[in-house]
């Protein structure tokens, strides 16, 4: 052990350093912050981390996060939601964003990632098998692709659509293009091209 180093502190710095977007400097700053903070505050953080690992798990049907002893998430348990329409998202954060809009009344399927083979995420890392089973049940009338509108998101939607093609269930995707509140003049040509290809009946 190098002179003057504290093993426990190093371990915490290392743990913070593994968080996304946290560099070596920030990890050190965070660890020293924890060290200086009152014990109850630091232990509350530790407890929150412990609980999220112990109490939060993926919904057995849609893979959204759910708490405690329930097998199904709140949305899958909600009888006012339409189980015949499934909206496919990459992650739970996307689901939460769509829920904040408050207009969608169907259910979801969370893929737990996106097809990103350059980063080592292949088709087998996603929850497409579960989606296929749901669609094969015969109760689904529409699958809406709500993956991110970038190449990896589009590729993910393509993969899912290919896998569901034989089911005969209509597959749609969220419209894209012009942002509400923006002006045509400042839209770039990709946005305008998307807006044209995604146009709807007036």
């Amino acid at each position, binding site marked *: 052990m190098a002179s003057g180093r504290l093993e426990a502190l190093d371990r915490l710095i290392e743990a913070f350093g593994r968080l996304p977007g946290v560099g070596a400097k920030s990890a050190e700053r965070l660890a020293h912050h924890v060290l200086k903070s009152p014990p109850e505050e630091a232990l509350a953080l530790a407890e929150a981390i412990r609980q999220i690992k112990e109490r939060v798990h993926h919904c057995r049907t849609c893979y959204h996060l759910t708490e405690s002893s329930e097998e199904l998430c709140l949305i899958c348990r909600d009888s006012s939601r339409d189980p015949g329409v499934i909206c496919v998202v990459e992650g739970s954060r996307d689901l939460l964003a769509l829920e904040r809009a408050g207009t969608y009344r169907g259910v979801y399927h969370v893929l737990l990632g996106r097809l990103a083979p*350059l980063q080592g995420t292949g088709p087998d890392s996603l929850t497409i098998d579960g989606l296929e089973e749901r669609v094969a049940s015969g109760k689904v009338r529409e699958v809406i692709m709500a993956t991110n509108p970038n*190449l990896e998101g589009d*590729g993910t939607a393509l993969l899912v659509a290919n896998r569901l093609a034989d089911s005969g269930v209509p597959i749609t995707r969220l419209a894209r293009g012009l942002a509400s509140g923006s002006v045509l003049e400042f839209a*770039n040509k*990709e946005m305008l091209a998307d807006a044209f290809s995604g146009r709807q009946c007036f």
Partner: protein
Amino acid sequence: MPSVRTLGLVVRTVDVFETSLIMTAFTRDLGKVSGLAKGARRLKSPMQGGLDLLGVSDIVLLHKASDALDLVTEAVPVERFASLRRDLAALYAGYYIAELLSDLTDFHDPHPRLFDAATVTLRHLGEPLLRSRRVLRFELACLRELGLMPVLDACAHCGVEVEAEGDSFAFGLATGGVLCPSCRTGQPHVATLSGRTLGAIRALASPGNAWRDPELGPGSLGAVRATLGAVISHHLGRRPRLLPFLGA
């Protein structure tokens, strides 16, 4: 602060902090470059769309001090390749091209011809009949441009003209090409190629239209795929991540 503008193909992006990303592009004039695009993932970012993977963009980089990451200050989309969004096999081939450009080239080592070969290949990945040949030709262009092209006509070790033994040739993956019978022994990683496979590699590597010849059937293309995959794995020091996703 000097800034440069160049055409670049985005080959890698990594999300950092809440709204930024670090992009790596293979540019026409500067070779591989990386830069931090601050706020690029924000909804109203002027760079939105210009930093999507496998898109060609007009990129402006601001050079920072030698130890800091350059800043991307503009990225305007110039070309996107529609087939990547329509055809999964084309998408995997496109990702493979990105992997080669990202991991086989060095920073600030420009190869305009390789950039052009990449964009031409990406434009045509939607044609299923010639797709695998176009990818193989791109791999060969990559090896040639980077000075890694296997020797196909003479012994890679001693330079004598190599005759087929029966119908097979010894091919040194580490030596970098075909081997004559006397040099073969003692060389590591030697594969045996049929005359047909070697002929197919030569056709794919040559200018002109020999690579389109329908006689280069799927049988020999499979062997070419395996050979070039092994050559590239050797230079990369690992198997390319996308290799298992490519059809022969």
